[in-house]
């Protein structure tokens, strides 16, 4: 067992973990942050995507010990303290970009990273290509793509302000 310390959603946390414990297991099982989901065992589906030091990472593909000292943001950490949704969350709701909700946390975390990494603009084809690491079985992606396109100006406007 190893003791690790990290920041999750702005709060300092520490935990005892086995060497083989995955970051997603730390989040879900030790920290009770069950918003991050596990949808596969081959790092394909993206339901477990979180932000590690600002980058989107599949938390099933990273050991918890590798997160020592890192700043992690999960789906639970996106909305403002007063409950105001992040623009990406708001646009997912506005454009009916979720149905069963299971892929949604990973999808939203990936989508935010995609928008942040393309400040100059994002075409529909780029959005579809960038979503390659996230599977959704419900929506056919049509409305997810729309939601991300709609969040783009809102997020970059916020950055500019």
């Amino acid at each position, binding site marked *: 067992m190893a003791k690790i310390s990290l920041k999750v959603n702005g709060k300092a946390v520490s935990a005892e973990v086995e060497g083989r414990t995955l970051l997603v297991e730390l989040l879900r099982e030790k920290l009770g942050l069950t918003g991050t989901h596990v949808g596969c065992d081959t790092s394909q589906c993206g339901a477990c995507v979180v932000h590690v030091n600002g980058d989107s990472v599949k938390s099933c593909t990273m050991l918890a010990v590798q997160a020592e000292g890192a700043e992690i943001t999960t789906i639970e950490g996106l909305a403002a303290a007063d409950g105001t949704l992040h623009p990406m969350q708001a646009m997912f709701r506005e454009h*009916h970009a979720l149905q069963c909700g299971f892929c949604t946390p990973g999808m939203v975390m990936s989508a935010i990273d995609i928008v942040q990494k393309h400040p100059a603009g994002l075409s529909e084809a780029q959005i*579809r290509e960038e979503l390659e690491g996230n599977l959704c079985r419900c929506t*056919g992606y049509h409305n997810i793509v729309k939601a991300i396109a709609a969040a783009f100006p809102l997020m970059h406007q916020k950055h500019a302000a």
Partner: protein
Amino acid sequence: MPFEGIGASVKRREDGRFLAGRGRYVDDMNRPGQVYAYIRRSDRPHARIKHIDIAAAAAAPGVIAVYTGADMAADGIGGLPCGWQIHNKDGSPMAEPLHPVLAIGKVRHVGDPIAVVIAETKTQAKDAAELLVIDLEDLPGLADIRAATAAGAPLVHDDVPGNVCYDWHIGDKDAVDAAFARAKHVVKLDLVNNRLIPNAMEPRAALGECDVAGHYTLSTTSQNPHVIRLLMGAFVLHIPEHKLRVIAPDVGGGFGSKIYHYAEEAIVTWAAGKLRRPVKWTAERSESFMSDAHGRDHVSHAEMAVDESGHFLALRVSTLANMGAYLSTFAPSVPTYLYATLLAGVYKTPAIYAEVKAIFTNTVPVDAYRGAGRPEAAFLLERLVDAVAHDTGIDRVALRRANFIPADAYPYQTPVALQYDSGNHEMTLAEALKAADYAGFPARRAEAARRGKLRGIGISTYLEACGIAPSQVAGALGARAGLYEVANIRVHPTGSVTVFTGAHSHGQGHETTMAQLVADQLGVPLDQVDVVHGDTGEIPFGMGTYGSRSLAVGGSAMVKAMDKIIAKGKRIAAHLMEAAVEDIEFKDGAFRVTGTDKAKALAEISLAAYVPHNYPIEELEPGLEETAFYDPKNFTYPGGCHVCEVEIDPETGVTKVVNFVAVDDVGRVINPMIVEGQVQGGVAQGIGQALLEGAAYDANGQLLSGSFMDYTMPRADNLPNITVGTEITLCTHNPLGSKGCGEVGAIGSPPAVINAVVDALKEYGVRHLDMPATAEKIWSIIQANRPKMAAE
């Protein structure tokens, strides 16, 4: 206040929790003292279990118990039940071999559960499971239905000769034979409907609990908790229903695969009773691939008899359907009453005869997957119609129009048992062709050709059947369950409303649409209505969600319950306003005395009902809460037209869907935004089936596509934008006029896609292509036919 009633695209109330990461799925739940189950499964398709040595596993750190099939048998636990019995042509019942919860004697498919290890932690359980010594003696296995029916094929079950579960038929064989004898053209087609793996994004999970008084609770990823309670309680574990509560909380997609009663549900519930500790099991995705019921897997031969002017005279179909190694809960109904009864489609073909053989193989059990039988029927028929067009030279749109059941012919009795109540196929066809700019296609094909691309367009004009019913008829056809739905509507003293529904939402947005329906009909603000579902401890005995039934059947039950609320409310209002009951009308949330300005709001009536000081107590019970069970008179019949346009790169064989239009008749729509989303999701699964997805087994039954690395799930860059239109006719036999929208996308789209691919490849001599039309398959066709083209 914005309009939020029937027809409004209200944003979903479920989204708040899902977007915040506050959904509550089974694997998110943890109980004090909880232990973890890990299931050791067969990695062989077919083998005799010679010996299981549990000693090392049982002694491993953290292990609490190890159980095998022998332990369950010692507790008097038999097999998992099947919910539908089909009878053979000769009237004898189908073969129904034992489906052990944990394997006994033999394993019959990769994924068959052999033993369960229960430990303090998940990793301890998994580590210990590796220490189980399971001595298997391989037996010859079978995956392909054609091989399984060959003479001398190995037997999946020793007591099922020829591996035939049933040999069933429907229709008038003599009339069909006579029509074929006088036909001008006979068009034949062999088709494979590819096996699919449903892959809801949430893997299945189950959490069993048992309290000191012997009350059990099972939380499970189910589409129908009461069905699970009945099947597991009464037929597997023998737990009386008042001592068994089944909860299906937030469920991350189902598509049919979460209808069935699975072994793991029984295992954790039984083990929780033995150990008196909560037992949780969560599937890893690789387990999902080898233990969730698969879908489709038909091999068919179809023949259409056609007269000189292109009218269909008769249809003859012969189908082999793969059941897998055991009968899943509703498997026998899928290739029979949900398939062959739909073979008339939208056409007035006067004579139809279909025979279906269901076959056991050493593969995962096959059951209903989004569409369940109807996609197989639609694919066969809409491919066959295109083949008729190909062989006779008649234009495929004109051919369809010439054979449509005309709108004024409804209600329409088909030759395969169903009576369609309503539809207008010309309307959906015309609208779809317009939306897809069908007329402009030749110019687009020519433009694509200049870029070196092969462009094709395909249409499908399909019909399906939803809300399987009535119970009595379904029972006569072999159903071992009722097919009604229930709603309980509780108007609280201050006029807010809680709706308890037997339907279950696992992505469909019922908490929003059902609230819209009730708010609209009772005239109360939407935020005054809540919907409760998924917990047998809270809701009356309901049948759950499958077959696009939730609104057409479950919503109709709500209307019936509201009718009772309003009828009672009128009597209370008549008393309070000293008027005759006949003079009270209910409108916009108030009871009014006709022709006066006297009125009482619903909240005033409900308060009087719960505080019955001034109340007709001699005639009426207090309270304002009503339950209605609604058993439909018939199926509903959604249908429509899908148009798909593809572009193929002949250098790579990659097919790109460049345009997809779906115009569907789903009956009355409550929330257009949600209907559009349902259709888009269904179409995505249909395009997946047509171009990408296919469960692969080797000849022996080893599963080759056992992960997302081998099984191609549609990704965002595989799919187009999907244009959805609705052109409706109302269902004539339910009070809402709704038909259902959950499966139309997956039913109408595969033939539209393949018709488009065949159209794109017509210069290469392609008349038919089996799904999935992968790049490799298309590239090979192009390569094989290139020299011939060059020579011509």
